[in-house]
């Protein structure tokens, strides 16, 4: 049984100029394996600089031009070529971006979500009703559609981003750091929204450094270190002193949580 999405041995490199015209390539992502199935929510965690965001951008094919990507990306069991990725992006695979600055400051929320639906291939009548439904599904009252992004709170802005990303009916959602800047109750609601997408049968990949916040809602955790996948563990393994965790780094992350004694070893 192949999962909905798999990425095997992903490498992302950047060409750098040295002296004169000599170039060399650095590989910030070097050996990354992640998979996620329909109905599943997977957290990708790691320190800053571990390659989390580069991974997301590689999965969507939105890296800068001097980047090179190697490795195998599979969607529904078939290889994702750059051409196929371009067709699927925004339709079957959606990104909830890291920064709320991704909202167009001059566009009302309703227009923005409707436009996302149109860009995903729906005609304007369908887009209108889809947009209304998407806002409602994420707990945003109808009058929010008339607001501009600067009139939204941090939590509402995140929900608008999620609504816009999923309005086209994507099968797979990648959320890049959806919680920083939110207080704990609001962050939990946003993660709960993402969990609901998984329960509806989509595949959800959430990129985060906040293990404590993400754990209660995800099925599995993929741990990155310096651009590589070093461990994968089911949620249940994160308990007690981390005896069920196979990798030292994963256990160190677990024991470093404030609620687990905040140990700074490893």
């Amino acid at each position, binding site marked *: 049984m192949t999962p909905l999405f798999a990425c095997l041995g992903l490498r992302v490199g950047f060409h750098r100029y040295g002296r004169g015209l000599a170039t060399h390539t650095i590989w910030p992502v070097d050996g990354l394996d992640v998979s996620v199935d329909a109905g599943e929510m997977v957290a990708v965690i790691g*320190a800053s*600089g571990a390659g989390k965001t580069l991974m997301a951008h590689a999965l969507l094919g939105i890296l800068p031009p001097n980047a090179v990507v190697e490795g195998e990306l599979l969607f529904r069991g078939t290889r994702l070529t750059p051409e196929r990725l371009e067709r699927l992006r925004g339709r079957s695979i959606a990104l909830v971006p890291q920064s709320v600055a991704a909202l167009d400051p001059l566009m009302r929320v309703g227009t923005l979500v409707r436009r996302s639906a149109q860009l995903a291939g729906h005609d304007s009548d369908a887009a209108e009703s889809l947009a209304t439904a998407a806002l409602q599904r994420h707990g945003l009252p109808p009058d929010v559609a008339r607001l501009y992004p600067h009139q939204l709170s941090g939590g509402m802005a995140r929900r608008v981003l999620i609504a816009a990303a999923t309005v086209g009916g994507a099968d797979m959602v990648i959320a890049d750091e959806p919680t920083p800047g939110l*207080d*704990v109750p609001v962050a939990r609601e946003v993660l709960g929204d993402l969990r609901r997408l998984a329960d509806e049968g989509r595949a959800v990949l959430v990129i985060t450094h906040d293990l404590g916040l993400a754990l209660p809602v995800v099925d599995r955790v993929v741990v990155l270190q310096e651009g590589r996948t070093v461990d994968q563990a089911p949620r249940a393994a994160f308990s007690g002193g981390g005896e069920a965790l196979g990798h030292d780094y994963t256990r160190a992350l677990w024991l470093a949580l*404030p609620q687990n004694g905040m140990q700074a070893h*490893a």
Partner: protein
Amino acid sequence: MLEAIGVTIAYPSCAPVLAGHSLQVQPGERLGLSGPSGCGKTTLGLVLAGYLKPQRGQVLVDGKPLPARGHCPVQLVPQHPELAVNPRWKLRDILAESRPEDCLATAFGVDPGWLDRYPVELSGGELQRVVLTRALAAGTRYLVCDEISAMLDPLTQARLWRALIEEAERRRVGLLVISHDPALLQAVCHRVIPFGDLACALDAPPSP
């Protein structure tokens, strides 16, 4: 002792953010401050470190107001270290602003190799170590830590706090720790007060 007495601040045409709030931090104490976003925690931090002048009330260190010039004994470490440094300065110059002791940089794991780099060439956790080192120069008696580890993974966060607590205990620096994370406040602070429970007195004396 660091004291805020009856501090009142209102941004133009808004209800006051701080309405006669008072708070005390003892030397060597780690006091946690929690509360929902937008309640005024950061504004209080800005007032304590002298960045904002209260419209009423005052801030005292050992009974004396904050000095108008020179190294302020109350230093603020903000949530986003990249906004607290000049992006066009190398880290050597950024650190030199407060001339911290060399051993302090070592204690916070500041790699001498970073000094010739620009802020964008460091990760958030690395830059936050530099900013903390700069804030803990010799004249600093109190530190306001405003969500200083919210952007860090658990392990980097634990290491940063371990170094900070050790240094603060050695020099009896008092910390006001502002955070959304109740588990973090429990783990690092001696006591935690919700923002809503701060002593409020609307009839505080006007600032001199």
